[in-house]
């Protein structure tokens, strides 16, 4: 901590007369000496405070009878909102959908990312590798609203590409947009479409660090390409796969709700399979529903999410320590 300037200053004061300031005074002195540092950090710290910490304190409305006039100082009602929440069948549906959809997303995006990375790793023609990789990466940059627009163009009953092609072939049209059972799969497909190109990059990076001598030795021993992929490449990235899955499980209560909201929107006939905690909260906000009740659901999500993130981070730490490596980000 001692900067050269500070040590010079404190050295010039004789120890007998110098009284070390304490508490707030010490902090103030520190601020005065390092005001440039505070000025540099302050804008970001302030924004974090305003948009993350204030809402954190604001979760108290889960225990209040909220009214827009009094905001966070509304009358306290204890756990009433939570009792309503336990009784409501809605919450179960929201939690089940949130976890269910996220499990599908994690399973399929991981599977395809690993598969594509393993296959790209086998490609020897540089131009083919670069081209396919660029194309697969492209959907990553599409905003969800654009995806929504195009998805509508693909699955619409009247003009959608799927039905247009079916009609051209002389077949019956199929109903996709109103079919609640199909939507978890459609969302998963969109997720794979959008995420695979970006997801495989981490695995590709892990694959490049494999010692090429391993492959050469295996080739001499008579292993064919498939066997080398199966018994050298895949085991080498298993730790990375495990870690990424663990990290994603940590975020299982959140997920990218922007996607579901933009793609499903207000189509009530699809809510039974696609409505997740975040989309419910967003609709509650826009329809001026009971804020206290909705905030209780939000707090439940925050707490469950917090436990999951901490739990998964802890497991990741143990797992990587056991392997003598440090995978921790923070």
């Amino acid at each position, binding site marked *: 901590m001692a*900067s050269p300037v500070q040590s010079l200053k404190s050295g010039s004061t004789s120890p007998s007369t110098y009284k070390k300031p304490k508490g707030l005074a010490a902090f103030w002195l520190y601020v005065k000496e390092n005001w440039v540092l505070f000025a540099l950090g302050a804008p970001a710290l302030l924004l974090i405070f305003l948009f993350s910490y204030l809402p954190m304190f604001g979760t108290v409305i889960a225990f209040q009878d909220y009214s827009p006039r009094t905001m966070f100082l509304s009358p306290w009602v204890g756990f009433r909102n939570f009792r309503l929440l336990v009784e409501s069948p809605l919450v179960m549906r929201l939690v089940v959908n949130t976890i269910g959809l996220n499990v599908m997303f994690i399973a399929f995006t991981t599977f395809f990312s690993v598969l*594509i990375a393993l296959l790209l790793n086998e490609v020897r023609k540089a131009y083919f590798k670069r081209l396919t990789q660029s194309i697969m990466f492209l959907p990553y940059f599409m905003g969800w*609203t*654009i*995806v929504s627009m195009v998805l509508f*163009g693909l699955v*619409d009953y009247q003009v959608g590409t799927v039905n247009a092609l079916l009609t051209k072939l002389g077949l019956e049209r199929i109903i996709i947009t109103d079919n609640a059972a199909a939507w978890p799969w459609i969302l998963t497909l969109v997720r794979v479409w959008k995420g695979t190109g970006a997801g495989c990059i981490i695995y590709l990076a892990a694959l490049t660090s494999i010692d090429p001598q391993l492959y050469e030795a295996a080739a001499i021993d008579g292993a064919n390409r498939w066997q080398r992929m199966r018994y050298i490449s895949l085991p080498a990235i298993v730790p990375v796969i495990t870690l990424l899955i663990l*990290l994603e499980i940590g975020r299982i209560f959140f997920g990218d709700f922007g996607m579901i909201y933009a793609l499903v929107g207000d189509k009530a006939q699809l809510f039974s399979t696609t409505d997740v905690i975040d989309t419910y909260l967003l609709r509650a906000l826009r329809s001026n529903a009971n804020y206290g009740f909705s905030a209780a659901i*939000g707090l439940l999500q925050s707490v469950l999410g*917090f436990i999951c993130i901490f739990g998964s981070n802890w497991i990741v730490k143990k797992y990587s320590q056991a392997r003598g490596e440090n995978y921790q980000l923070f």
Partner: protein
Amino acid sequence: MVEQRTATDRVFDFLIYAFLALFALFCLFPFWIMIVSSLTDDLVLRQDGYLPWARKWSLEAFRWVISGNDMRTGYAVTIFVTVVGTICSLFVMSGLAYVMSLKRLKGRNKLAFYVFFTMVFVPGLIPWFITSRNLLHMHDNIWALILPMMVQPFWVFVLRNFFSSLPSELIESAYIDGASDSTILLRIVLPLSTPALATVGLFMAVAYWNDWFLGVMLLDFANFRPLSVIILKMVNNVQAIQAAMKQPGVSINLAGLPTLSIRMATAVITIGPIILAYPFVQRYFVRGLTLGSVKG
């Protein structure tokens, strides 16, 4: 590599190339539909639906979209938000990241925790909404689209880690020579960190460009909308009208509905800049994705 390629290996090779090509086509297909139908004559689209080929080409949709006032404002808003947001965000985040990277800073662990905690405890949507809107009065204002997402804790940590990896002798010697922290940041740290800044900046730019959430939540009476919100509105309107048409005895004026080709033309125009910049900046994104994750 001199290697004996067996028959199995050749079949294996062929399957790999075929599968990758198919997957790439799958990724490209929606773009194909989007571009072809934005250039198709609208009457043909209404008869045939969105097909991967066009019977009759037309530039009408693009002409209509470009001449529309809403779209022009939308474009201006989105560009402003993206440019100003990204630049401010880089400055603000690297300021904090620099402070956090200093070893002489007292309580740097506490500071890191302050930033980190917001990543693990995510307050619900409702308190966030009430705070930004009713407490801070962040609505119907262009800054409402910029400020709430300006500081991303994740990228702050990425920048901090990058700054920490710079040779500390450089910073310390400048400090001893009497340079202030702001000078060190602007003259030494930032110029040395261009790869990290480019990566973070590009991710922020894409986030700003595509963001619709702030526009939906915080713009009610404003007379401007970012592109993403215009598109979301279009999709929702079309769906609402379709739902209404299923009810018996409801008559609806379809004239105000954007035609099939106009919808796609809007989408094409919105993603245009991203597609154009993509080949030049792709490598930074690749770097960002590997950097922002566990090391293999």
